[in-house]
């Protein structure tokens, strides 16, 4: 066998292996997707949206409490995390720029983005749950907001930097003060990008379970009291899935399916906005 023939065979083997690994990866991933969709669709019914949690065995058992709790938690987290993230990103892009400080903040924020979310939960437990003496929706929302800030900060920083410098200069030339230039020119130019970042940030924290386990904890009943433990889809899903009761497990899959659809929807809308913004 000549050297060239050997190389051709080696090429076939290597490319075959890499195609095989892609097939294996896809097979596993579709298996999970298929389970999620089939189990989820099977478990879906109107009761889920009408009733709150009930002990196992009850027919009138639903996820209303967790759905509303999830929306409250994510909404609160968005209310806290988005303004802080956007302002911080604005500082980096418009004031800090290439200063050492700005780079340090970017680096630390980048590391934060990949840090274990359960540690954030432990931190919030220590600073809020322990002094207050009980779990609360506030604690859960703050934990989610801390996870959200680095994501929003990063996209805002990146998106604002894409706004052409000439646009800023043109506004300055008209005598506008810097804050006005930023608010009316720079933000407007980066609107689509920032909005996408916000949606992706919300999508990311909506799927978090670990930081909620010991901050907002869980509750099997409907509540809107922000000073009390609050149910969420993720923690409910976790608790129901590890329970030995089949009807609870069913509800767990329904929660999984609804939450995945919600997150996927946010992802799609976010990308569509960015896409539409780019085409203009």
């Amino acid at each position: 066998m000549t050297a060239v023939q050997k190389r051709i065979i080696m090429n076939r083997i290597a490319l075959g292996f890499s195609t095989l690994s892609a097939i294996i990866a896809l097979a596993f991933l579709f298996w999970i997707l298929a389970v999620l969709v089939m189990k989820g669709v099977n478990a879906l019914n109107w009761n889920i949206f009408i009733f709150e949690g009930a002990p196992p065995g009850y027919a009138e058992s639903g996820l209303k409490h967790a759905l509303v709790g999830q929306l409250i938690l994510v909404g609160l987290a968005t209310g806290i995390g988005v303004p802080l993230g956007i302002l911080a990103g604005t500082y980096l892009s418009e004031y800090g720029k290439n200063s050492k400080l700005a780079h340090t903040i970017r680096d630390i924020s980048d590391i934060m983005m990949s840090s274990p979310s359960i540690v954030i939960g432990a931190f919030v437990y220590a600073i809020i749950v322990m002094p207050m003496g009980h779990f609360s929706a506030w604690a859960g929302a703050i934990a989610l907001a801390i996870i959200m800030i680095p994501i929003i900060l990063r996209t805002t920083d990146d998106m604002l930097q894409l706004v052409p410098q000439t646009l800023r200069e043109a506004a300055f030339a008209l005598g506008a003060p810097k804050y006005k230039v930023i608010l009316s020119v720079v933000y407007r130019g980066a609107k689509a990008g920032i909005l996408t970042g916000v949606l992706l940030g919300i999508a990311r924290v909506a799927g978090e379970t670990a930081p909620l386990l010991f901050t907002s904890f869980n509750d099997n009943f409907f509540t809107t009291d922000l000073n009390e433990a609050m149910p969420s889809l993720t923690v409910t899903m976790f608790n129901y899935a590890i329970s030995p009761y089949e009807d609870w497990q069913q509800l767990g899959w329904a929660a999984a399916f609804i939450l995945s659809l919600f997150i996927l929807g946010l992802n799609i809308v976010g990308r569509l906005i960015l896409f539409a913004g780019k085409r203009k």
Partner: protein
Amino acid sequence: MIDKLFFNFTRFSAFLILVIVAWIFVVLFNHSLEAMHAFGLDFITQDQWAPNLNKFGAYAAILGSVLSTTLAMILAVPVAIGVAIFLSEIAHDKIKSFFGISVELLAAIPSVIYGMWGLFYFVPIIRDVFGGMGIGLLAAGIVLAIMILPFMAAVTRDAMNTTPDILKESAYALGGTQWDVIKDVIIPYAKAGIIGSLILALGRAIGETMAVTFVMGNVHKVPTSILSPMTSIPVTLANEFTEADSSLYFSSLFGLALTLLVMSFIVIAIAKFYFLRKTRRA
């Protein structure tokens, strides 16, 4: 006036990040002091974790984290590199976008669902094939590997795609096969980016809680085989934080959280600053 105010608002928010990160370290450190005083180095070298005796040694949990992520890396890295090669060098455009959409789909799935899938669908298979309980190190490693695979493959592909076309063409122009070009040009060229991407995925795997909580077993024991049920730092935190009933128990859990944070910080920092520095930001 307003100008100054706006500036201060933005500066405050930016500094808040630094403050929060520092605060996290300080809080976790302060709360773990009691356990540090009580156990000293034994905290990380002893494997006896016995809340009823007020004895807390984190060795088994730390080992569990190391073993499960190592196993996940061993399983995921070759597949991820294979997938990345497939996506950057073999697949046609349609397959590429199909795969891209699939990866987006999977990124949208919360990790707790990977755990549920593992518990209900994969653990029984392990039980049938290998015997034992099914839950344990092997199940955790596999679920974790699947969980990080899409991210790992995507970032590895991005690293490979930084190789200029003209460089690849030069190797083809000398009569190289695709594999020659991959191993002699693309991988050496993108080496730093590829290693950085893999380590970044490792950093994420270390802190992953929900995907493994279901399938690990939460047993504070040094494993005797790959099928042994065991625990890891995040799994211990998830299962025991709300059950802790003594201040030493709490303190030990905070010690675990601090250990986990330091581990992942170091891994992520190595990935970002040592390997990905050049490609990070133009």
